[in-house]
């Protein structure tokens, strides 16, 4: 058993090194956000706050960019995209599974093909469209292109397919129309898949970078992701303040990952489609 213990020790050692390397940026982001310029701007820079804790980095970050507005924009954008995707996906998945859809294979192909087209390859016409409609710097401009998703439709379709037919027929006999059946029976019973889709949509919407960069100009209407990248190029040279902004932007997704991992994994594995 000696060799086994030795191997275990080795595992711990490798794991420990990886732990330090992988977690270091997280650590420095958090601790650095509380460090003053005397710690961060000297060389070599401090690895922990040697000259006091500086929570005012957070208020400084709030001074430089309108983080409050940007937070709200990010929240509205995320909510809009998430709810939009859930509704359009649920409706479409319902049609695919429960309705007598003509040219089903064709429509299936249409939805499938949307997943193969990288948004970056069609971002120029989208940008032109949104500017032409005067929707730059609006929540509409930030959300509209993403209100439907092939991935979400297939995710919910998988879940609907496993719904017992007898239950559905019973509901129909009871006089429940399509709408009522979908929203008051089917969706509540598909909660885990819906949650997986929701978390997945919310994470990608919150973290979006390229599109909000193009679709907004006024700092007041930018999302927080753009905001923090502007912090970095602002005139101030206080890394602590920049990192404070990062921590603020990170907070919601950090909570999601720590407490919603179960659902994320479900979305990921169903996302084997993507």
């Amino acid at each position, binding site marked *: 058993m000696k060799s086994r213990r030795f191997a275990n020790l080795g595992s711990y050692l490798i*794991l420990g090194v990886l732990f330090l390397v992988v977690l270091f*940026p997280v650590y420095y982001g958090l601790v650095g956000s509380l460090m003053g310029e005397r710690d961060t701007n000297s060389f070599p820079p401090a690895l922990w706050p040697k000259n006091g804790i500086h929570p005012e980095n957070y208020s400084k970050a709030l001074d430089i960019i309108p983080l409050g507005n940007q937070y709200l924009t990010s929240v509205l954008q995320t909510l809009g995209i998430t709810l939009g995707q859930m*509704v359009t996906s649920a409706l479409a998945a319902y*049609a695919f599974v429960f309705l007598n*859809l003509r040219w089903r294979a064709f429509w299936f192909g249409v939805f499938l093909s949307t997943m193969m*087209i990288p948004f970056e390859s069609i971002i120029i016409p989208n940008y032109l469209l949104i500017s032409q409609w005067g929707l730059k710097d609006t929540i509409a401009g930030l959300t509209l*292109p993403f209100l*439907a998703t092939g991935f979400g439709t297939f995710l919910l379709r998988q879940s609907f397919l496993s719904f017992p037919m007898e239950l559905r027929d019973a509901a129909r006999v009871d006089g429940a129309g399509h709408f009522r059946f979908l929203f008051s029976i089917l969706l509540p019973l598909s909660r885990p898949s819906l949650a997986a889709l929701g978390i997945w949509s919310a994470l990608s919407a919150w*973290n979006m970078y390229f599109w909000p960069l193009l679709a907004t100009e006024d700092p007041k209407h930018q999302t927080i992701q753009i905001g923090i990248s502007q912090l*970095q190029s602002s005139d101030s040279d206080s890394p602590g303040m920049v990192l404070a902004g990062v921590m603020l932007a990170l907070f919601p997704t950090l909570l999601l990952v720590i407490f919603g991992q179960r659902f994320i994994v479900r979305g990921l594995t169903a996302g084997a489609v993507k």
Partner: protein
Amino acid sequence: MSSPVASTVGAEGRRERWIAIGYLLPALIVFGLFIFWPLVKSILLSVQGTDILGNPSGFVGAVNYTRLFSDPDFLQVLWVTFAFTVLTVIPSIAIALLIALLLQGRIRGVRFFRTAFALPFAFSVATASVIFGVLFNPASGVLNGILSHLGIDKVQWLTNPDLALWSVSGATVWMQIGYNLLVLSAGLGALPEDILEAARLDGASGLRLQRSIVMPLLTPQLFFLVVVGTIHSLQSFGQIKILTVGGPEDRTTTLVYSIYEQAFANNNSNYGYASAQAMVLLVIVLIITALQFGVLERKVFYR
């Protein structure tokens, strides 16, 4: 493509057909406006010139495309894109696999480690890039600080043309680890317990033996990660914009960054030329996706 719908006939059936279309409609409208129409428009833009305001200035045929492939800068863009993809996809999967396998062993505090290692997944490309920007700072960055303790001179992480792509790739690998780890851990968790147990009882606690038994069973996940990771890398933009703006000497200008530069940076509005590049991106992604569906198709969709 079977569906559990009882076939209905007559007026009732026709009505339901319309209802069905109605249910698809919201998604179809979004797709039509923001995916299919832009796709057509991209193709149209790519065969037109562009005036100084960004308006299409008339049909030019394949000029934008011939310009692309005769432009040595664009060949470099393709090379950088390829190198970036290789430098990010393979290491991020390898490291995640190593962590996943180590966590599969009988290790104390597995739950803690698992959550900790998944944390990078919470970082957006912007948050992670800004942090790495601080770490890479040549004058007062922590990375150079640590190196100085080891007696190593300051490294120009992002401005040395031979190093910048490696640095950006390193940051990207970090961003990818969390996701890859979650997928691989889920895959490992779904493996039959008796197989894992047998592997352990046989004394296969070392990485080498575990690898020979467990890894083949993870092939679907690994294949999936290679495909998804490749597509993801091809689409990468934020880290390049934030860390290097495509430099030094365009050595970190990938295809997507080049599209951005041609269309939106430096007062460029070369929508025609940029659209031609966008079509190249589309074709590359389509090829990779086709490859994926070729292998995974039956498994995932058609049951």
